[in-house]
């Protein structure tokens, strides 16, 4: 049986990660997913701020240096700084006391890193649904919905406001804002609750980049959008809801909608 799609869900970082493998090697599929899962769990152990014994927690307490931690810690912290630059300050992981909280990109970074493990399954195509962020690979396209901003909880199976095609020019998709995190993102410049957009979706080829820009635009507003264009990303910005339940939105010219 190699014509089926193998679909499973693993839990890590207190989030569900959906893995879809098209026509995988029947023997290798489960071990590949297990290796993927193990990578995510490892990343959580290194980067979790809710575990006192994570490397990041120890580093922030000053108990270890970056050289004593896995090199990935330095890599992610440097990535945060890099994204702060390319998003024109919209993505900013620095806390007021000068330490870094990289949690905003850890999920995307960990998924992109762990996705390599899925190669062992020799699937013709694959998809990872990482709690709202999507990464695909392989030879076929997939239709991915954009969640209704008013939906709380897992949006799977709920009506969506747009459908995009991933798998060709675009392989990664990240969304920020919406009912989930309203009031949880701050504008780094004004310090106020960010209500620039109800929801921001970013499509590109790098999940970490999409994630960082989605968060940056949600937090920093329109001034961040040109920086996303310069990186070749496409955006869908939900600007407001209408009284009849529809939404006003703006899309960039290359937004891969299939409506």
């Amino acid at each position, binding site marked *: 049986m190699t014509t089926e799609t193998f679909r499973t869900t693993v839990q890590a*970082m207190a*989030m569900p990660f959906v893995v879809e493998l098209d026509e995988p090697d029947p023997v290798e599929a489960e071990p590949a997913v297990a290796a993927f899962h193990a990578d995510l769990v490892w990343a959580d152990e290194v980067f979790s701020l809710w575990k006192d014994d994570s490397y990041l927690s120890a580093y922030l307490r000053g108990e270890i240096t970056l050289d004593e931690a896995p090199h990935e810690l330095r890599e992610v912290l440097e990535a945060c700084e890099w994204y702060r630059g390319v998003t024109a300050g919209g993505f900013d992981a620095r806390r007021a006391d000068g330490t870094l909280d990289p949690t905003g990109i850890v999920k995307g970074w960990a998924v992109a890193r762990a996705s390599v493990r899925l190669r062992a399954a020799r699937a013709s195509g694959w998809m990872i649904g990482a709690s709202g962020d999507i990464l695909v690979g392989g030879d076929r396209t997939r239709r991915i919905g954009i969640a209704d901003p008013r939906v709380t909880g897992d949006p799977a199976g709920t009506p969506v406001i747009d459908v995009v095609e991933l798998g060709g020019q675009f392989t990664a998709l990240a969304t920020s804002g919406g009912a989930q995190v309203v*009031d949880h993102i701050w504008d780094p410049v004004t310090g106020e609750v960010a*209500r620039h957009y109800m929801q921001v979706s970013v499509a590109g080829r790098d999940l970490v980049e999409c994630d960082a820009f989605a968060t940056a635009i949600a937090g920093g507003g329109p001034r961040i959008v040109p920086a996303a264009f310069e990186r070749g990303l496409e955006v869908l910005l939900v600007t*407001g809801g209408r009284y009849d339940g529809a939404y006003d*939105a703006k899309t960039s010219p290359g937004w891969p909608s299939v409506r």
Partner: protein
Amino acid sequence: MVAGGCAAIVGAGWAASPKELPSLDLVAPSSPESSAGAEASPSASASVGSSPSPSPSATEALDDDHDDDHEDEVEIEDEHEDGDDDDGDDAPVVAAPTETAAAEPDPVVTSAPAEPAQPASQSVDGPVVTNARGEFQARITVEGGTVTDVQAIRAGTQDAQSVQINARAIPILREEVLAAQSWDVAAVSGASFTSPGFLESVRGAFASAGL
């Protein structure tokens, strides 16, 4: 004197019905069919800010409101936001500010005079409000005394650079109207929907930059 009187009216409005937009009786209603008619009838319209020769007294009164009632306006926006969370049916009326209205604790939105007595749909422009972040102007649509839409006509910008950036980026964005529908999709992209801890972390990452 005019300004003081106006502020008093607004205050009474809040006390009586804090969720309603204040009604400014001293501003004469514009004609019911005027949907954007700021320039057409500057003296009678509430669109004092955008009109070339606004009524001086109305302008002064409205601008004064922004200062006096700033805090109240922030609160009322929050109330609408909460309503949106609780019940998606009625809240979008006001709870759906565009990006610029949302970015500000926007004095423009709530101080734009609503005319509850107007029978038909009517658009009313608020005054242009200038602050450190630029010029802001709201347009509200009133139907039968209920505000059915709030738009931002002018989007404030923070500095010359962002003026340039916005001028470059915003025009190439395409306007869309999207409605939630059932589609056959492999997955749905939304904001992270997991543990409160993760949300707390997003807060942590951004709350701090002084953040």
